[in-house]
């Protein structure tokens, strides 16, 4: 009857969102008067989840699951949920998790609500707050099914420490050939760079930068801040930057702590996609750019003068605060 949480790892190391979803699951478990059980796949240091309120870890060790496989992972999670009698399953909002969540929910006849931004409004009835209309609104959604699957938005609840002792148990789900009917051939993941999904800070460039050759200063600004780089839709449509960097309503959503937009005017679709970011800074030479209405801080000025100065000031700041 525990709350089940899927804690994601990459090459054995827990992702930051694993600790956030564990923290969220602990809050739900407290409300329901129960405990949290996590499922891990080929992870190291499982007991560290105890710091975030996980009392029990079902540890899956299986070479076939080294590369993420949505159907096989969903099957394993369904079996874990049954074994635990779990009625609430908590997931993240990563690309992998959004791939497996509907499979898991359909397998279990469970209602699934993604993009959840706060602890449940209530647990009886079970109502959660989530974003809708591409961040232009929120919905308070009741889940009426017996089993409930919740996808928590990145950076929405935060990582909260609630130290308990985590008992680690081996768990061996029975997987079929059918679980592996979609095979991974090749994974092409940028290494050594912060991804938009995991980033605390995102630095984004728009058409105001005039051409792909001018992205050096965006990259440098991102590097100084330890940030991910992103771009507006026109920039990705023009082929200046890869599609994977396109953020906005039809691109990737951004939910970082700080979003810095350089040379982006702020079309309504772009603002929708980045509105979940906590603090927004805009640098644009047009004082009428709509982004200034949605931003917390702004500089009206030429990006080619402002950004190098900002890089310099940030370097000084980092040197003083190192």
């Amino acid at each position, binding site marked *: 009857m525990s709350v089940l949480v899927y804690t994601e790892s990459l090459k054995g190391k827990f992702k930051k969102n694993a600790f956030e979803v564990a923290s969220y699951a602990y809050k739900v478990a407290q409300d329901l008067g129960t405990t949290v059980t996590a499922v891990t796949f080929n992870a190291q240091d499982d007991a560290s989840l105890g710091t975030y309120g996980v009392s029990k870890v079902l540890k899956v060790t299986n070479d076939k699951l080294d590369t993420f496989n949505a159907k096989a992972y969903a099957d394993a999670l369904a079996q874990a949920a049954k074994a635990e009698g779990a009625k609430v399953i908590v997931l993240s909002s990563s*690309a992998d998790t959004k791939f497996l969540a509907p499979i898991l929910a359909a397998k279990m006849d469970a209602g699934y609500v993604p993009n959840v931004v706060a602890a449940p409004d209530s647990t009886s009835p079970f109502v959660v707050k989530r974003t809708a209309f591409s961040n232009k609104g929120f*919905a308070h959604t009741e*889940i009426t099914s017996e089993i409930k699957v919740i996808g928590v938005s990145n950076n929405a609840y935060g990582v909260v420490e609630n130290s308990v002792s985590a008992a680690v148990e081996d768990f061996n789900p029975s997987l079929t050939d059918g679980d592996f009917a979609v095979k991974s051939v090749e994974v092409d993941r940028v290494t050594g760079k912060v991804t938009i999904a995991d980033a605390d800070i995102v630095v984004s460039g728009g058409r105001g930068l005039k051409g792909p050759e001018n992205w050096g200063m965006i990259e440098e600004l991102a590097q100084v801040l330890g940030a991910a780089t992103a771009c507006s839709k026109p920039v990705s449509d023009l082929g200046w930057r890869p599609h994977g960097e396109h953020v906005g309503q039809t691109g990737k959503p951004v939910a970082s702590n700080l979003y810095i937009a350089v040379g982006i005017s702020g079309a309504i679709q772009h603002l929708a996609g980045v509105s979940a970011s906590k603090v927004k800074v805009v640098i644009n030479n047009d004082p009428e750019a709509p982004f200034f209405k949605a931003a917390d*801080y702004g500089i009206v000025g030429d990006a080619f003068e402002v950004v190098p100065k900002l890089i310099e*000031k940030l370097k000084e700041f980092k040197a003083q605060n190192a």
Partner: protein
Amino acid sequence: MKILVCISNVPDTTSKINFTEGDTKFDTNGVQFVINPNDEFGLTRAMWFKEKQGATVHVATVGGAQTEPTIRKALAIGADEAIRVNAEPKDGFFVAKQLAEVVKNGGYDLVIAGRESIDYNGGMVPGMLATLLDMNFVNTCIGLEIDGTQATALREIDGGKEKLSTSLPLVIGGQKGLVEESDLRIPNMRGIMMARQKALNVVEPVDAPQLTKDEKFDKPAPKGAVKLVSPDNVGELVDLLHNEAKVI
């Protein structure tokens, strides 16, 4: 190859969002409805399969009669036939159940749906549909090639992409990348005229439970005024981000 493209009827991306009836319903007043952008990339890819590989392309939506202009647009772009399940879409599971019935009756090899609709952003219909039908499934699909019954798909992952191999029957959750923005088609007059002759079959829904219900909507709190920093004093911005916003 028989392809079904699932279409969601959504507010245009430029729409202002308002709620009505005590904030319990989306206010459609003055809103222009369009083919969900993620679905339109899939529909355009389906047209490629039709033209290069001789595929038959049907489109389906779950919705009332008010969705028909959007379906007609899909026919004008080049789909051969359309199916409308005559029911208000209650939630993602309900829609997946309806589409599963359409797929079963139509014997489709490939089902292309959008990764998510831009209104309710559930992102669950393609995966639930595949699971209900025990078909293979690839989400956030940004590239798809079919050779006989073999499929090679590219999927967007956090920080990169993954190449996958699988077989038909297959469901994909598609998005930009399946085709480029510049490949999208505006229906021409001939397409619009032909669309009027094409079959738009209305079928009644099957019984399906509703597992989630939107009780109430609200909008983000209005934003305070932007704090402007002079371009000659960029250091002040660093100071504000550190001491006031506490994000660096």
